[in-house]
């Protein structure tokens, strides 16, 4: 857990932000998908389009995949996939607590 936090902070400072770095409820805008074409296409069809808003949701118990709220539906992705989706945070999009 501590390692994850550290990595997250480091990520915020230096390297570009990815979907894997965000906390529950931290809304963001998708910038680009760094994935093989097939996989990127599949994700785009599910709503992971550059410019779309994504809200990270619950994670599966035990650190499994995480549910992301995107384009009106909820899609689960593994952490390693989420780490390939580069995002930016808008200044006004502050933490929104999800129930």
């Amino acid at each position, binding site marked *: 857990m501590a390692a994850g936090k550290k990595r997250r902070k480091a990520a915020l400072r230096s390297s570009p932000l990815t979907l894997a770095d965000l906390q529950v409820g931290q809304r963001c805008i998708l910038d680009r998908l760094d994935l093989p074409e097939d*996989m990127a296409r599949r994700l*785009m069809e599910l709503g992971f389009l550059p410019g779309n808003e994504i809200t990270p949701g619950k994670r599966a118990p*035990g650190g499994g995949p995480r*549910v992301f709220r995107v384009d009106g539906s*909820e899609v*689960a992705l*593994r952490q390693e*996939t989420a780490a390939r989706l580069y995002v930016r945070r808008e200044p006004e999009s502050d933490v929104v607590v999800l129930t």
Partner: protein
Amino acid sequence: MSSCHGNTPRAGLLPNPSILPPRPASDRPIIVAIVGPPNSGKSTLFNRLTGLRQKVANFPGVTVEHRMGKAKLKDHHEVFLVDLPGVYSLHPRAEDEQVTHDVLKGEQPDFPKPDAVILILDSTNLGRNLVLAAPILSLGLPTLVLLNMADDLAARGGKVDIAALSNELNCPVALISAAKGTGIDRIQQFLLGTAVRLNSPPPRIELPVLHDVPKCRQWAAKLGIRASYRPPAPPLWTRRLDAIFLHPVAGPLIFAAIVVAVFQSIFSWAKPVMDGMQGFVLTSGIWMKHVMPDSPWRSLLVDGVWSGVGAVVVFLPQILLLFLFIGILEDSGYLARAALIADRTMSKFGLQGKSFIPLLSAYACAVPAIMATRVIENKRDRIATMMIAPLMTCSARLPVYTLLIAAFIPNIPLLGGILSLPAATMLSLYVLGFLAAIMTARILKSSILKSRGSSFVLEMPPYRWPTWQSLTLRLIDRARVFLRRAGTVILLVAIVLWVLAHLPLENGKTPPLEHSAAGMIGKTIEPAIKPLGFNWKIGIGLITSLAAREVIVGTLGTIYGIEGDEESQAKGLQTALHRDLSASGAVALLIFFAFAMQCFSTLAVVKRETGGWKWPIFQFSYMLVLAYSGSWLAFHIANHFLA
């Protein structure tokens, strides 16, 4: 809400005649394809229109084979409906998407190109769903667009202007609720229009470049704005339930509790019904013996057919109960959460959460499970899942397990009465099958089926109440499949077995079972199975159960029916078994059935799906080795403890 625009129902419905193959009106029936994204309610609609069963699951990609059904129209025309696998686009990646793509393009071998399309979309998420309209409309077929889950949309405060959308798409659009049956009239009108094949110019609208996903999405967004679409509020209940079911502590505990509850109730609820049915089979057999004159026919009917088939039919209530539970879990949307919870564990064994979907349905039957592996894009992951699916405890093992457990495992309460020893034994057999499956997966995925890291992308459907209609249709279909098997495979095996048990005649009389052809076959393999604690009579059962697992129960029923006097028959199979099987032999037999590949249908479907005999032969052999060594070990360990 029915009429979407001012035109007559038939306007704008009909195909460009040049697209359709030229043929007289009566040449072949009209085929209408139902297309939509996963979870849009295609199967529910299909059920409603045809009355035929179709697996409905609140789960992306569970329908992998297309299904046909006939819809009767009000003017007595008939239209064939085909339910295609759910797709997000017509850009095929997984094999289920390929099926949809091929059928719609008329490229599916032995399948005619559909005459019209019903596109069904989830109205609660129109922004994303409408994207599919672009490739479907570009097919140039007459299309009806249905916006499903109208009730949900309204309840959560969303709305859409149907007339405007219909104008934009230049095809009829209707708001419906397939689950509740509202708006279905509109479909009848469309099908009627298709059936009489009225002519009208092909729809002319501007479509985006299809392989450009962002462009398609923009097109859909613009459509949504023009149709003044207001998306509904997020499903609050789904959030609340996910907070519980995906809770780090409560989530896995609830999952375990559900599994235990299912097993316990399969045992305790089904038992009275099963006891009643067993009593009926026995007493009616005895009654038939009394009213019919003594002849070989009476023996064939009563000892061969009635005891053989009856012994298997008794298990129907239990199997239906299991399917009911799986159906509720699937239709409610809980299974997607279970896959999510399982993904991390599955990845440790080289698989992914999506393999969990077929593996769970393998608890019911390996055949649909192997077909459901088509949702797995990675070929090696898919074959690995196919190889291990038959190790999951399918419902055909239930009759065998139930018989042996009831005969040999004493009913001792455990954990202060929450669980009984028989239920615990059953549960451990299920766990054993699961463990064997994931261990095999691990071995396969780190050797012959090694692949680079697979991915996991799964849409989480909102929770929904399972409908009685869907559950009932599912159960009726399962009952039909089970009884058809009892009436064909099991009946045939019972008759062949009866003949083999009565030949060759000794001095014109039927021989004792030992000297009959069946007995001699059993005696031949006895040396091989003796180390497992089985004698030649069990051996006969092992051979017949190569056709299907539950056949052994019918075979034993037939054997004891032929051998036994009325008194021992009345006591039933459980008592008779004690003469031929020790307690440790029974444990070994349970283990044998847990691991062995005794199902011809599964082998056939694996052959079909992998395109050759290589994998089914491999599967049969390793499972036999596993079964033999496993039951040898179990027999010796049990002997050690029970002695």
